[in-house]
């Protein structure tokens, strides 16, 4: 246990039972070998405890690069990332996994596992190599499964799940990590409307319980409804950041997404909502 760890623990605990921790990304520049353009060109953002922060933007704007920079899997040539008061570099892989739970966009599956074994891997960083699951481990595994509605599927194989079930099991694994910071890269990619809404409501609850939630998503309208802070990326740069009102602006989104669209306030739920127009509108407008 390092002094940084001890200091972090002095912070006020939240109702989730985790310690509140801010995620701060400062002026991060990432450039892949052999690529002329920078994938991230000086991106800064702060995700605060108790709220949902969303990163949106077109394909290739650098959204997933932020997640991979956090996982230390790409060449960061400048900038700093802090979790709580500690710099990302000071984290061992294990301590990182007990502090930040990430649901990556992609994942390989060489060997189909049982759902309960798969979700139990969320406790990997908490456990010794041969130790059995403790009561605490089991508690967080069961909790993760219950909150994602997958408790009934513990004995099923991961290769027999539907796309939606698979996404929920992945989120359950991240919840089993019981980390104060939760980062999700397109967690609703294969989900139907009901399951997508359930995930957004779950993330909303987790944020309200005091966790720091950073969400990468293509679902602008749901993000506008649920996230308290939105970061719009465009070609590796922050095009806009702030509340839904500051980011959900028609001319800004039209420029960033390079597509004709309108932003209206939805009559039913009162949230700002983006509606893409037919491509032919580009020429007539």
């Amino acid at each position, binding site marked *: 246990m390092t002094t940084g760890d001890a200091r972090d623990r002095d912070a006020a605990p939240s109702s989730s039972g985790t310690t509140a921790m801010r995620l701060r990304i400062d002026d991060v520049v990432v450039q892949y070998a052999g690529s002329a353009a920078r994938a991230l060109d000086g991106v800064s953002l702060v995700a605060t405890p108790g709220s949902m922060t969303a990163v949106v933007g077109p394909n290739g704007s650098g959204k997933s690069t932020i997640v991979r920079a956090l996982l230390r*899997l790409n060449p960061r040539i400048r900038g700093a990332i802090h979790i709580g008061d500690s710099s990302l570099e000071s984290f061992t*892989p294990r301590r990182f996994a007990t502090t*930040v739970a990430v649901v990556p966009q*992609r994942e390989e599956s*060489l060997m189909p596992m*049982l759902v309960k074994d798969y979700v139990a891997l969320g406790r*990997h960083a908490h456990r010794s190599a041969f130790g059995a699951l403790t009561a605490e481990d089991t508690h967080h595994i069961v909790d993760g499964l219950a909150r994602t509605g997958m408790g009934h599927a*513990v004995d099923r194989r991961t290769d027999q799940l539907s796309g939606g079930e698979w996404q929920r099991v992945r989120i359950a694994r991240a919840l089993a990590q019981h980390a104060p910071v939760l980062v999700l890269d397109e967690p609703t990619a294969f989900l139907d409307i009901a399951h997508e809404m359930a995930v957004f409501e779950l993330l909303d609850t987790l944020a309200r319980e005091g966790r720091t939630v950073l969400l990468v998503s293509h679902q602008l309208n749901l993000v506008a409804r649920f996230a308290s802070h939105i970061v719009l990326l465009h070609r590796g740069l922050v095009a806009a950041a702030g509340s839904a009102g500051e980011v959900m602006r028609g001319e800004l989104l039209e420029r960033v997404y390079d597509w004709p669209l309108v932003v209206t306030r939805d009559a039913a739920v009162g949230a700002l909502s983006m509606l893409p127009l037919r491509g032919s509108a580009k020429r007539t407008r």
Partner: protein
Amino acid sequence: MSTPARRAEIDARLLAALGVCGVVVMLAVAVAIGTVSVPIGEVWSALRGVGDATTVTIVRDLRVPRALLAALVGVGLSVSGGALQGTLRNPLAEPFLLGVSGGAAVGAVIATALGITSPLVVTVAAFVGAAFATALVSVIARVAGGGSDTRLLLMAGVVVGAFANAAILVALADAPPERLRGALWWMMGSAADATWGAVARLAVAIVVLATPLIWWARDIDVLAMGDDAAASLGVDTVRTSRRVFLVASWLAAATVAAAGLVGFVGLVVPNIARAVGARHHRSMLLVSALFGAALMIGADLLARTARAPADLPLGAVTALIGVPFFLLRMRRLAA
């Protein structure tokens, strides 16, 4: 959660129990069958040194060490292959794809070319050659890409292996027939020269090298999901995969040093373990070890009885077993 968890454990234990039974039955059969057949009832007394002196010698000095050596080769190759497949995320990876085979053969051939005749020294030379080739593969992959791109390891393995094969062929171009025969022994594999000393050496190597792989099994579970998932679950992807790669390769090298190159086992057995229901790497490696041991005892039995008194190369027998298995898998995949 406790009830379903127990059910899954029983599944793994059932597989392990089947594996243990398989090994025991195969051992008994292999000791009983041969040019001189020994009734199963007499095997036990011969083991204790009771009965006909010739039978005792055949059982204690020839058949038991040979069957045990074959079993240990099966354990080493299967555990090595299972760990590598998980770490490289490739069900077609096998130890010999990564330079081990070529390196071992080069070591043995160089030792023979230097006029060394002691089998022990040639064995050590083979192991050193394999360990060196493995380290070379690791360094080439690191220099080429730096990160943990597993494809680079495979490509570096192919390069080092091809170079080693070329070196052997050049070295053997004008070799006298008896040296050619010795080299062939390395390239095709055989347990025919098994001694209790060789069994003991390989057993120690397996304990030393297979234990850490089984210890790291949950790391391998996580690595098998890809870099992003592994990093998010707290595994240092680059360091851990390099560690598994080196230890698994040395394990394969130890089997090569003991019995030459026996292909297909390290490839096929982990696939069988997955197909019959191993759901994570710890059970997969243990089940593979047992299945691999049983399979190799059987393969060696075939090698010495199919065309007796001639001894077939072990590598040829395992390939003949592996081919239909792969055809079956292909049909399953296509279905």
